[in-house]
């Protein structure tokens, strides 16, 4: 039945279409503009005369002899050592993702199968911790870290980020394990497995979609973080985001703001790729908490 529900007046369809197009432009245009502009010189990207310069690259052509220049990228990655920040980011994000997934999977599984009353307490406490701004906790870490003499190192930042990530991971894995029928591991228990064997043989094979989804968000949290890595790491161990923030003060006066633009585009690319390849998982993760919780 081509049901009446799907029939709409042309005007409604048109308005909806126009609205979505409008939103698409708002959502995507800033990125397109910045990527395009990152291959220009500053006089074009921040043109005093006309924004048209940023598109055709008038000054870029005059200065470099070509309409595109990768000077910004060279300056950022080579001259100012952005590659080092990229390496640090890679180390931190991988470590944070692996550790928080391990802890979160075990914790979430235990909570989902637990019958104690206090598990609600734990979940609510986790939600409350999630509500606190990251930076308020960082201010609590700093002084003890100075005293213990572990301030400034990558592992320290990893520990803090894992901790900040824990409430979210716990909730995600909890609601995911709630969705796996109890019968699955209980029948394994009946067959004589221990709790751990039941987890390993019955649950691990089916938990990967949930783990991937949670892992993506753990990755994003570590990757996007500014407050923790900005305050806890020494300048040498800096990750990409605080590095960009440090450009803002320093480079603006040197007239090399294009370094920052190039760095910004470099940071955006991995997120683009992530969304491109894992869109399904990301959407399911965003809605999981809502639909189940």
């Amino acid at each position, binding site marked *: 039945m081509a049901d009446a529900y799907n029939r709409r007046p042309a005007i409604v369809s048109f308005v909806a279409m126009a609205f979505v197009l409008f939103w698409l432009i*708002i959502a995507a245009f800033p990125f397109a503009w910045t990527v395009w502009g990152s291959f220009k010189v500053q006089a074009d990207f921040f043109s005093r005369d006309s924004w048209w310069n940023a598109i055709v690259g008038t000054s870029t052509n005059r200065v470099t002899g070509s309409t595109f220049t990768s000077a910004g990228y060279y300056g950022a990655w080579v001259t100012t050592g952005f590659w080092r920040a990229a390496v640090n980011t890679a180390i931190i994000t991988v470590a944070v993702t692996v550790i928080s997934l391990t802890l979160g999977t*075990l914790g979430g599984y235990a909570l989902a199968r637990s019958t104690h009353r206090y598990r609600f307490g734990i979940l609510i406490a986790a939600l409350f911790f999630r509500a606190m701004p990251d930076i308020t906790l960082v201010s609590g870490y700093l002084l003890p870290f100075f005293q213990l003499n572990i301030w400034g190192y990558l592992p320290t930042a990893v520990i803090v980020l894992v901790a900040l990530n824990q409430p979210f*991971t716990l909730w995600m894995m909890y609601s995911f394990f709630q969705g796996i029928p109890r019968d699955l591991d209980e029948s394994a228990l009946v067959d004589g497995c221990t709790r751990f064997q039941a987890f390993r043989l019955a649950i691990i094979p089916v938990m990967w979609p949930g783990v991937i989804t949670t892992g993506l968000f753990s990755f994003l949290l570590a990757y996007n973080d500014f*407050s923790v890595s900005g305050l806890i790491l020494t300048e040498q161990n800096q990750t990409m985001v605080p590095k960009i923030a440090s450009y803002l003060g320093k480079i603006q006066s040197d007239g090399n703001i294009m370094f920052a633009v190039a760095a910004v585009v470099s940071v955006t690319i991995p997120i683009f790729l992530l969304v491109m390849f894992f869109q399904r998982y990301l959407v399911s993760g965003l809605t999981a908490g809502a639909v189940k919780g």
Partner: protein
Amino acid sequence: MGPSLIAMFLFMALPIVSIFVQSLHIEHPQVVIVSETCQPFGGCVETTSVDAAAGAKLRAEAPLGQFNGFGTYGDRNHLAFAEIGIILTESAGLGDAVSRIYNLPLYRALAFTVAYTAVVTPLAMILGFLIALAVNTLPQLFKGTVIFFSLVPMLITPLVGALILYWMLNAEGILGAAIQGLFNDPNLSTRTSAPLTWVTLMTYGVWTNAPFSFIVFYAGLQAVPRETLEAAMIDGASRIERIRFVVLPSIKPLVLFVLLVQLMDNFRVFEPIISFNAASNASSLSFLVYSSLNTQTTQLFGSAAATSMITIGFITVLIVPVLLRVARDLSGGKT
């Protein structure tokens, strides 16, 4: 469950204790030596110098600093009880009192944080809901594309996303120039005008938060019972009425969920202020903590900790009603 709990306790509950203890202390004052040098005829001159060695020793013995009780909470940079008392008794009218209170750092930060949360949360939710309704009418083919391009502004690093918008809104960027042209005022700049800074920061907030509402509401729309919708149609409900009486009630639990997440996220607004270089026109509670810690000389741990405690207090007030609802649903609905 053990390890995860221990991690949460160690790294979240303990720091709160640590913040609280820190907030009761204040940095050591510099140790000053006053020495008098007397010349035979010129009289005596008092010179003061900072005894760096003694200061370092003090800091090593008591790294927390001096005990200050709740003094930090009440001082000018925080709750400023004394200043408010003076303002309330002396001020010439309400406007004067408000503007003088606004000049106190904590209240200035609080004003922006609350305004940002109060404006961005509903706007982003409404925009997200409208996009979800519109996308729902599109052919299947486009839906993936729209979702792809919507996810990026949400998942982008906040500092980076805000920078991208800032550069466009800059007086020399494309949007900034367009706004100048629109109002025909070549000096219009987001940097100089406080209201304009607030508006741009909030624009960023809606831009980056709307997609979340969109994705969640869109998923919710798929689950709206079709029979009810069709029944409403047969009963003669108009398009608007169907949204009002069928769609909205069925996605109500989602609204609560989105509201909770958005309140938490917006209340911690911080990165855009750095990206927009907006500290002179807008500041937030998180930004205050950051600026106490990110100083050139001594880090003001006591001040940062007191601001943190106050922030946690506010977020508790804000979030507890919603949390209680969630708790009720958790213990009542399932199991």
